[in-house]
């Protein structure tokens, strides 16, 4: 069926080309609808219980979507600067999306004296005299709710916390808000010593703009480098153009369809062009190399495309070779990516869907376009000239072939060393940890990262999370015992020493208590009655309390501020907090630690875990498909080796050097796995194919390696070069990805070309499906005298050590005078028997499907008495005595009936010969 389809494809090539162009244009129309969404919100699964808890906390205590603006000025406490600051406060409060601002202008303070108290908003009025300002500054620094939270210890830096509406997290909002904020701040540059801002809008905006910049510069640059390297290595412009053309079509259609389906480009799908280029390049290069080999074999390069011409035949043969491996690669990688389309995380689901589409389109365009382009422009595909690159690659291929011809002992020793290395890598892989921090995506020299560090140094970090505690009873947190638990929690946070600040209602109460006792620090303690707690809280406006305690006093919130970027560390510390909270609550209080950054972190970890799961599914798919191809689990396992080894190498190295797994490094595995799988499928399919024609498996292996190593080396080296370009990226994470991908690409090359062949050399793989695919073959085998009395299982087992060989008309299966230890069963076609007698070739009839020959040589080495030549396309099953003895001594239940059947065959052949001799002797004596 596939063959018919391929033939139709070539015959209707012009119509097909027009159809492709039409459909591409149609799909490409969707590009105008494509949206970019780098927001990390899509990481958080809607049904995630943590998200529900988080949303509840936000509803209760207000948004944790906070942009921090820090103002530094040595002369901050002067009427002029405070007035400017007030203007800045007002301007910022006008920004769309700002729920409220927490700063020196909104914070309330209390000052106690011998006769009473003073409750006031710190900067409700800007004092004009130096003495007043100085007193206010001292008071602010003496207020634990202000010092270290809104004002630096030296009083020169103040923070304006812009609490943004929680729903204002969309990509568009972030960009617009960041622009507006920068515009406002721009108006004050020069007025203050320093003015910095950091929040989700800035981080997301910079992520987006950098991503677009990378898209615009790096991808074309990378593609250009790949093209140049390909031209150098393959000495063909067409070879370099093929992957680019297929990648271009795939990218247009994939992103166009994404536009139509409403799938946005997210942080993960931004990698799709690279993935498309990698998979597409490999396939196109294999196809080109195969085509070139076919052309080189003929030595004829007509420039016509008509059926029957050499170019047409070369394309057809190339398709015969390449279609199955190509389809296998497409199916395996598509299954791998599709496995995540049911993920609860929007980001992963969208990416999986997009990647699955990309893989399918890439396969489709490679299969359709490359043959057509070769048919039209393949004349330019000159056979490999002996340039420096080609000589080098040739030598490498030669060396690899020689490596496979080493002794069995050396091969096994090498494999043992690989096994040891694998164990070492597995051990270190267990130390790997996952982390995700948007700021770590950027290089340390970037202003954004520098600003974050400066802001943390000045006052406190720019990240927040909540610890919410819920009492069993209404008004439970007026109870001094419960408040004491909150205090213990806050004290533990201080002891941990990893977070910058933790503010709760406890701090408010302790402060008020102190001030109601004339500022005596001995009273900076929690009141001992619920009445006093309630009465002290009257001195704060409800909107100020809202962040810390619910109106019914049943829930409290500790606001923790920090600058921990490493999600692994953060999760560890949060884990400690959770344990302490559980211990302190004693079952009376329900605690929860929530925050958008915690949700994103946990989702990012889940994302990486899901990626690893998807890799496992991909490996499983590969295993199943290759096992089916070879009707052997061994085949499936061997196919996994070149995919597993680079993965192990990478995880092992990450574990060894304590490098965390982040979205960038995790993506390397996906891409390298793609290319590794591609390489192993091609190598094993080629090997399988060659085994049909070559009874010597080792020879077939060497030949397969010679055929496949060149395209694989070329693809891996060029793609590694392409990935190295990513070192120029705006993102550290992408640069890391580029470097790791390049290294992994080369390591996977070694795995594919050294280790897989070594393993293949150790086992026997037979594509049973080839034999059983036709029902007449199955019938033939069951009815063959060779397998008489054997069960289907015994037959299948026996076939494992056979070789399926194909011969074209005129090809010689056995040569007169030669030696052979093989026995043959004809599965299809007809062979002729002939012998040279006194210089004259005499024909002795022919053997048809089902016939067995060569049994004498199988029993004992003898000189062949006949030539056996294929009269048409012939398929034979070939049994080698050496192989048979080697393998079947372990399976006497198979060896015994097989040998018995062979002996019957031999006996009947002997009886025939004796009968013929007797008949001849009788005729001769009659004649005499």
């Amino acid at each position, binding site marked *: 069926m596939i063959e018919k389809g391929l033939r139709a494809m070539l015959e209707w090539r012009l119509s097909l080309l027009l159809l492709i162009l039409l459909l591409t244009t149609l799909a490409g129309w969707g590009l105008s609808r494509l949206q970019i969404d780098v927001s990390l919100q899509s990481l958080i699964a809607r049904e995630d219980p943590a998200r529900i808890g988080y949303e509840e906390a936000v*509803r*209760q205590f207000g948004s944790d979507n906070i942009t921090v603006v820090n103002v530094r000025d040595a002369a901050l406490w002067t009427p002029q600067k405070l007035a400017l600051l*007030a203007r800045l406060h*007002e301007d910022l*409060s006008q920004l769309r999306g700002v*729920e*409220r601002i927490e700063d020196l202008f*909104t914070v*309330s303070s209390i*000052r106690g*004296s011998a*006769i*009473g*108290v*003073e*409750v*006031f*908003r710190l900067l*409700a*009025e800007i004092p004009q005299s130096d003495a007043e300002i100085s007193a206010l500054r001292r008071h602010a620094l003496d207020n634990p709710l202000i010092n270290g939270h809104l004002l630096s210890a030296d009083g020169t830096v103040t923070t304006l916390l812009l609490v943004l509406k929680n729903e204002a997290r969309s990509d568009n909002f972030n960009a617009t808000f960041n622009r507006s904020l920068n515009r406002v701040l721009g108006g004050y540059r020069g007025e203050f010593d320093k003015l910095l801002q950091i929040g989700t809008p800035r981080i997301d905006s910079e992520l987006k703009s950098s991503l677009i910049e990378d898209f615009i510069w790096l991808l074309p640059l990378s593609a250009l480098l790949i093209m140049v390297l390909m031209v150098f290595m393959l000495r063909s412009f067409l070879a370099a153009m093929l992957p680019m053309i297929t990648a271009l079509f795939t990218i247009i259609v994939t992103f166009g369809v994404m536009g139509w389906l409403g799938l946005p480009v997210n942080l993960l799908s931004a990698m799709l062009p690279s993935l498309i280029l990698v998979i597409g390049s490999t396939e196109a290069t294999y196809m080109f190399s195969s085509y070139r080999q076919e052309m080189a074999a003929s030595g004829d390069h007509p420039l016509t495309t008509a059926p029957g011409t050499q170019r047409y035949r070369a394309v057809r043969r190339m398709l015969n070779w390449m279609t199955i491996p190509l389809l296998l690669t497409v199916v395996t990688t598509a299954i791998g990516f599709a496995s995540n389309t049911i993920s609860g995380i929007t980001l992963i689901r969208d990416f999986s869907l997009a990647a699955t589409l990309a893989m399918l389109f890439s396969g489709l365009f490679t299969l359709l376009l490359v043959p057509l382009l070769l048919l039209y422009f393949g004349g330019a595909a000159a056979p490999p000239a002996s340039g420096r690159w080609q000589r080098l690659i040739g030598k490498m291929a030669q060396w690899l072939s020689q490596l496979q011809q080493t002794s069995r002992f050396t091969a096994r020793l090498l494999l043992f060393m690989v096994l040891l290395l694998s164990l070492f890598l597995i051990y270190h892989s267990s130390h790997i940890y996952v982390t995700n921090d948007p700021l770590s995506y950027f290089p340390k020299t970037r202003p954004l990262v520098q600003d974050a560090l400066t802001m943390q140094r000045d006052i406190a970090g720019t990240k927040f999370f909540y610890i919410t505690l819920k009492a069993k009873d*209404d*008004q439970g947190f*007026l109870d001094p015992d419960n408040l004491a638990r909150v205090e213990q929690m806050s004290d533990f946070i201080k002891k941990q020493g990893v977070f910058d600040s933790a503010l709760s209602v406890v701090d408010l109460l302790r402060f008020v208590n102190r001030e*109601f006792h004339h500022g005596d620090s001995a009273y900076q303690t929690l*009141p001992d*009655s*619920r*009445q*006093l*707690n*309630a*009465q*002290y*809280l*009257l*001195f*704060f*406006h*409800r*909107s100020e*309390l*809202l962040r810390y305690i*619910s*109106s*019914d006093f*049943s*829930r409290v919130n500790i606001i923790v501020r920090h600058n921990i970027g490493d999600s692994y560390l953060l999760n560890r510390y949060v884990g400690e907090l959770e344990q302490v909270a559980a211990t302190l609550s004693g079952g009376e209080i329900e605690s929860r630690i929530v925050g958008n950054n915690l949700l994103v972190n946990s989702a990012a970890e889940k994302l990486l875990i899901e990626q690893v799961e998807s890799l496992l599914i991909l490996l499983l798919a590969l295993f199943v498909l290759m096992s089916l191809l070879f009707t052997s689990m061994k085949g499936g396992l061997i196919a996994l080796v070149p995919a597993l080894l680079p993965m192990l190498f990478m995880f092992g190295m990450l574990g060894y050097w304590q490098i965390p797994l982040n979205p960038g490094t995790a993506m390397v595995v996906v891409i390298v796995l793609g290319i590794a799988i591609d390489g192993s499928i091609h190598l094993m399919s080629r090997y399988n194919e060659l085994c049909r024609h070559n009874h010597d498996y080792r020879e077939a292996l060497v030949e397969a390696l010679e055929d496949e190593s060149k395209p694989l080396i070329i693809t891996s080296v060029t793609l590694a070069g392409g990935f190295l370009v990513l070192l120029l990226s705006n993102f550290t994470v992408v640069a890391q990805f580029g470097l790791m991908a390049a290294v992994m690409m080369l390591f996977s090359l070694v795995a594919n070309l050294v280790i897989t062949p070594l393993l293949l050399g150790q086992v026997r793989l037979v594509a049973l499906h080839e034999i059983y695919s036709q029902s007449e073959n199955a019938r033939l085998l069951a009815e063959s005298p060779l397998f008489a009395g054997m069960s289907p299982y015994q037959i299948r087992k026996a076939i494992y050590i056979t070789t399926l060989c194909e011969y074209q008309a005129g090809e010689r299966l056995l040569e007169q005078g030669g030696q052979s230890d093989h026995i043959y069963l004809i599965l299809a076609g007809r062979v002729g028997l002939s012998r040279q007698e006194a210089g004259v070739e005499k024909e002795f009839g022919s053997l048809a499907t089902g016939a067995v020959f060569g049994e004498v040589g199988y029993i004992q080495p003898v000189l062949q008495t006949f030539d056996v030549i294929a009269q048409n396309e012939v398929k034979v099953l070939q049994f080698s005595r050496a192989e048979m003895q080697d393998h079947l001594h372990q399976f006497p239940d198979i060896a015994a009936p097989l040998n018995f059947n062979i002996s019957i065959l031999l006996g009947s052949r002997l009886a025939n010969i004796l009968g013929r001799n007797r008949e001849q002797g009788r005729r001769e004596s009659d004649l005499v």
Partner: protein
Amino acid sequence: MVLWRALGAGLFVALLFLPPAFANEEAALRSGRALMESLSAQSSHYPWVYEEQTLILSALGWRQEGLADGVRMVRKQRFYSRSEIDGTFRALLIIDYPAELQGVALLLQSDAAGGVQRWIYLPALSDELLVVNERQRGSPFFGSDFTLADLLPEATDRFDYRLLSLTADPEKALPADRFERVEALPRAANNPHPNFRLRRHYIDVAQKVIASTEYLNHQGEVAMRLSYHDLHALGVQKDGGWRGDMLLMENFAQGHQSLLKVDKRVFSESYVPASLFTHDWIVSQGGSGARSEKWLAESHYLQDAEAMLRRHLEGGAPPRVDARGQGDD
């Protein structure tokens, strides 16, 4: 030459119109003050006021969230005010519910010269009345959105009032024949509302009542709005003006609102004797919890207040000064 002539002509025309412009401003100020003073005089008909109030504090926009637990705070309180012939004005606010706050009191006293003194009483802290410093005058009290100045009668001598045409503000869409707009601009010293540049009163002329007041911050934006609802006519012949039984203060800057519902109002000296405004009486109100329990037993007050709030807020924007301004329940 032509340019100089044109400039001269322009100047001449401007000078022609200048005196009437000044005259208009003068008239606006005069009529604004007259209007506010007439309203102020009307309130002086009731020198003794006793009110039982329910105060609901909640976040702005809480209607969208539903009346979920924990998003609002309810208090029951008593309010006493007494004006003396010598110009002294005293007001006392005592919280009865919740139990933890029972007895918490705020006492204010202003004299004819405009001097204001404030004390608070926290029964759980001590038996002392604590002086509250003058700086608190512009700050909200007891966590609500009302300021101390809102408890006091309008100090007309500290503001300039300017009557503005309603048609000047097309956004309001108020019937110009019924409402007046008066801007209250603080004079230099002793501004009772120091956090605001000016206040803008919308006055229902027919009913002689302020229907709504907007508080404009120093940038000229409406930061808060106080609106009066559930208006009731006072006096036997209903000639004593109108009073709102429900006041809603929306604090846009803080995203918060305070609803004050007057459950009971009595204008009687016997309800507000001078002895109430003393240390001993105030201290005697704290601690037992009996009042709180009594109020809880009559918890229909809370339901009433909430029902009223719902009626006002459901199905549209928060109450604004418009044709519905008259007691629309």
